[in-house]
């Protein structure tokens, strides 16, 4: 295994309790960019239309980046690809930490898991063994306890564990996969998919070196990248304050989603910010993912309430979701909520989202003010009530009492409860929106609508539209011809920005880099990525070819959804963000509209070579990308489909 030779795919069949190894030619790493791209290719080829994301046939692909294991700065990330139990559509969810490098050093580039184990199982993958272990005694344990006990019982202090918590075991559709204790592939319920397979954990460790085609050239470009990261102001900012550092600025822009996206501003945003974490003594220490010089990860401890509560994080999304969303203004409460999500294995974005929906539903009388806690007691659904939030997190993870109503996500909850409650269910495609305001950021609105996994920032993330930094303004100028288009409230040229960012994100994930370095700071450019991939593989690849390969990946992922019947009708935004104006002091009419989104979608589909009416790849586009087999599969699926089944989980 290595970046300079064949790609080694380890296949594990849990039903048969057998493994096999497949070698893919290195050229595939250039054609599909590596990790995520190859994983999406495997997912498309090896699952059929209408497959059950919680069934035997479900395939989960764990794909560290092609450069993971090397010194390429930030290249420690792993993308998990599968069909989402939450949306019934394509899902890629990415995690940092050290697990991906562990899989690489065990000798494997990609892990494909299929089938269902007959009882709770863990996998141990080293360079000498792939072992199926009995995980009965880990079942029910939280993420931290599982990780700690596995290291001890395997007598491998430096083993790295990816696992699910109780939420994944209980098929909660807000459950993620955690690794290196506090790093989450959170979105889309892939933890539930692992739980349905009875697979509690995957432990990795090995001593197989990574060999590159041209180590000297690779070192030179890595040094160039490292120096650029160190010199980029936004990278320093994230190192100092973590991702939660952006709470304050977002609030000042009146774009911090407060109280279930009703407002964009809160009075005391400092109290839930990264600045507060760092300056008021909550931050215990900083941590890096593998090979990352930024170190945005926090390890924090509560100070007054919740004694002993310590954990990795919190991230921006978590404090924005609980602090601003649920109105928990005390940092200690946010830290406890963060710790609970971590150890129970829950996606903090989606978990806080369903809790906000429940609070609003109670406020509007659609659900009772007091609900059953599943233990003979009742909790009061009220904004800002920390006890209720913390209780609800556990109730969701264990599907206890009213928690069971929330555990399938906000779309399902609104269907169960009925009334108008779907109007404040802030989701699209069945996924809860991340804590980003799109009513005053039109590239974001388009990117969220077209994102095949649902409305969040981790498929496109067109941060450049804000023109925050010299790097961002340069990029907008290069893509549109004028830096004046770095203006979030206008729609001009936004489809171009979105297309570029999606392509950059596909490169980022596939190489194993972090979007913090490539997108939110623009420290690592596609040209640098091309140079790193060329040096690693010995196959010359240009920036243009990287974009072409990224388009191949994006078309494949779009085709996966198209095969399920999804298309333009699903490229929508949550109802609230389309119909309710965001109050703001600048007098801007801040809302998204069908007309505005429709115009941007037309232009975006044209750029992509997709059918304007259906929003799916044209056969000619797929063929031109060398995806003729995908075009055939799509044609067959379209002929066979019953239109009403589109996109249902």
């Amino acid at each position, binding site marked *: 295994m290595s970046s300079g030779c064949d790609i080694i795919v380890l296949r594990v069949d849990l039903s048969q309790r057998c493994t096999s190894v497949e070698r893919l030619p290195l050229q595939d790493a250039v054609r599909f960019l590596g990790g995520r791209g190859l994983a999406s290719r495997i997912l498309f080829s090896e699952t059929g239309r209408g497959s059950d994301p919680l069934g035997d046939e479900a395939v989960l692909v764990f794909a560290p980046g092609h450069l993971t294991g090397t010194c390429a700065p930030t290249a420690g990330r792993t993308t998990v690809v599968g069909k989402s139990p939450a949306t019934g559509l394509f899902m890629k969810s990415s995690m940092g930490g050290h697990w991906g490098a562990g899989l690489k*050093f065990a000798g494997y580039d990609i892990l494909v898991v299929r089938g269902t184990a007959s009882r709770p199982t863990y996998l141990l993958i080293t360079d000498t063994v792939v072992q199926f272990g009995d995980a009965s005694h880990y079942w029910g344990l939280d993420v931290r306890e599982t990780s700690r006990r596995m290291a001890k019982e395997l007598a491998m202090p430096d083993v790295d564990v990816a696992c699910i918590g109780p939420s994944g075991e209980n098929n909660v559709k807000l459950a993620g996969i955690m690794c290196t*204790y506090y790093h989450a592939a959170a979105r889309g319920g892939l933890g539930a998919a692992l739980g349905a397979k009875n697979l509690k954990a995957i432990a990795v460790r090995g001593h197989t*070196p990574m060999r590159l085609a041209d*180590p000297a050239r690779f070192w030179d470009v890595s040094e160039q990248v490292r120096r650029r990261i160190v010199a980029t102001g936004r990278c320093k900012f994230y190192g100092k304050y973590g991702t939660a550092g952006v709470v304050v600025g977002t609030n000042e822009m009146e774009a911090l989603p407060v109280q279930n996206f009703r407002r964009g501003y809160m009075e005391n945003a400092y109290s839930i910010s990264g600045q507060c974490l760092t300056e008021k003594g909550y931050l215990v220490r900083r*941590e*890096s993912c593998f*090979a990352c010089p930024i170190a945005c*990860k926090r390890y924090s401890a509560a100070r007054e309430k919740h004694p002993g509560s310590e954990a990795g994080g919190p991230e921006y999304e978590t404090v924005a979701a609980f602090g601003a969303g649920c109105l928990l203004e005390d940092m200690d409460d946010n830290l406890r909520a963060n710790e609970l999500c971590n150890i129970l294995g829950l996606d903090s974005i989606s978990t806080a989202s369903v809790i906000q929906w429940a609070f609003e539903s109670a406020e509007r009388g659609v659900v009772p003010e007091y609900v059953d806690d599943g233990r003979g007691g009742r909790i009061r659904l009220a904004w800002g009530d920390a006890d209720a939030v913390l209780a609800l997190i556990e109730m969701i993870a264990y599907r206890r009492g009213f928690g069971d109503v929330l555990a399938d996500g906000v779309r399902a909850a609104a269907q169960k409860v009925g009334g108008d409650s779907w109007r404040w269910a802030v989701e699209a495609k069945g996924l809860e929106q991340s804590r980003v305001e799109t009513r005053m950021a039109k590239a974001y609105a388009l990117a969220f609508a077209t994102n095949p996994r649902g409305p969040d920032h981790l498929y496109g993330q067109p941060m450049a539209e804000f023109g925050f930094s010299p790097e961002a303004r340069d990029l907008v100028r290069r893509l549109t011809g004028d830096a004046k288009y770095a203006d979030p409230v206008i729609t001009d040229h936004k489809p171009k920005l979105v297309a570029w960012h999606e392509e950059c994100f596909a490169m980022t994930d596939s190489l194993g880099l972090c979007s913090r370095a490539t997108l939110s700071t623009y420290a690592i450019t596609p040209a640098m990525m091309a140079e790193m991939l060329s040096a690693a593989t010995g196959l010359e690849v240009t920036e243009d070819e990287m974009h072409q390969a990224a388009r191949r990946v994006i078309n494949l992922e779009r085709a996966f959804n198209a095969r399920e019947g999804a298309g333009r009708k699903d490229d929508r935004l949550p109802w609230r963000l389309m119909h309710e104006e965001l109050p703001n002091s600048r007098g801007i009419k801040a809302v998204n509209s069908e007309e505005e989104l429709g115009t941007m979608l037309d232009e975006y589909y044209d750029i992509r070579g997709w059918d304007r009416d259906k929003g799916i790849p044209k056969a000619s586009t797929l063929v031109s990308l060398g995806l003729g087999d995908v075009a055939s599969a799509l044609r067959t699926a379209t002929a066979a489909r019953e239109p009403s089944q589109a996109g249902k989980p």
Partner: protein
Amino acid sequence: MGHALVTDPARCTGCLQCELACSLKHEGVFAPWLARVVVHREPETCRAFPNVCRHCDDPPCVRACPVGALKPSPATGAVYVDVVECIGCRECLEACPNGSISFDPDKGVALKCDLCNGEPACAKVCPSEAITMERCG
């Protein structure tokens, strides 16, 4: 006179850039376990402790080596392992009070910091100044 590497565990974030740079420079591959600098990580509490050779004035490793395979380099004075002469007895690992010498089981030789001819790669790439190069004497 000489140089020394100084570590500050409070600054280390556990990114392992030092191990990666070291293994690439000395072994031509990325293999953190073959690095001359070792970072001990405790992921549950996100602690990380970098450990590098202190380049002692009267090095116990040199005294312990039965075949004289540990020698001062002419350029920097830093003690390095002459892999041709090393017999893999691990006496130096035992003798080092700091636990700063590792072992390559495949090649059967000790792995020890040689200060990269005065420009240590680990200190160069460390993003948080947890490993720095200092002049002493």
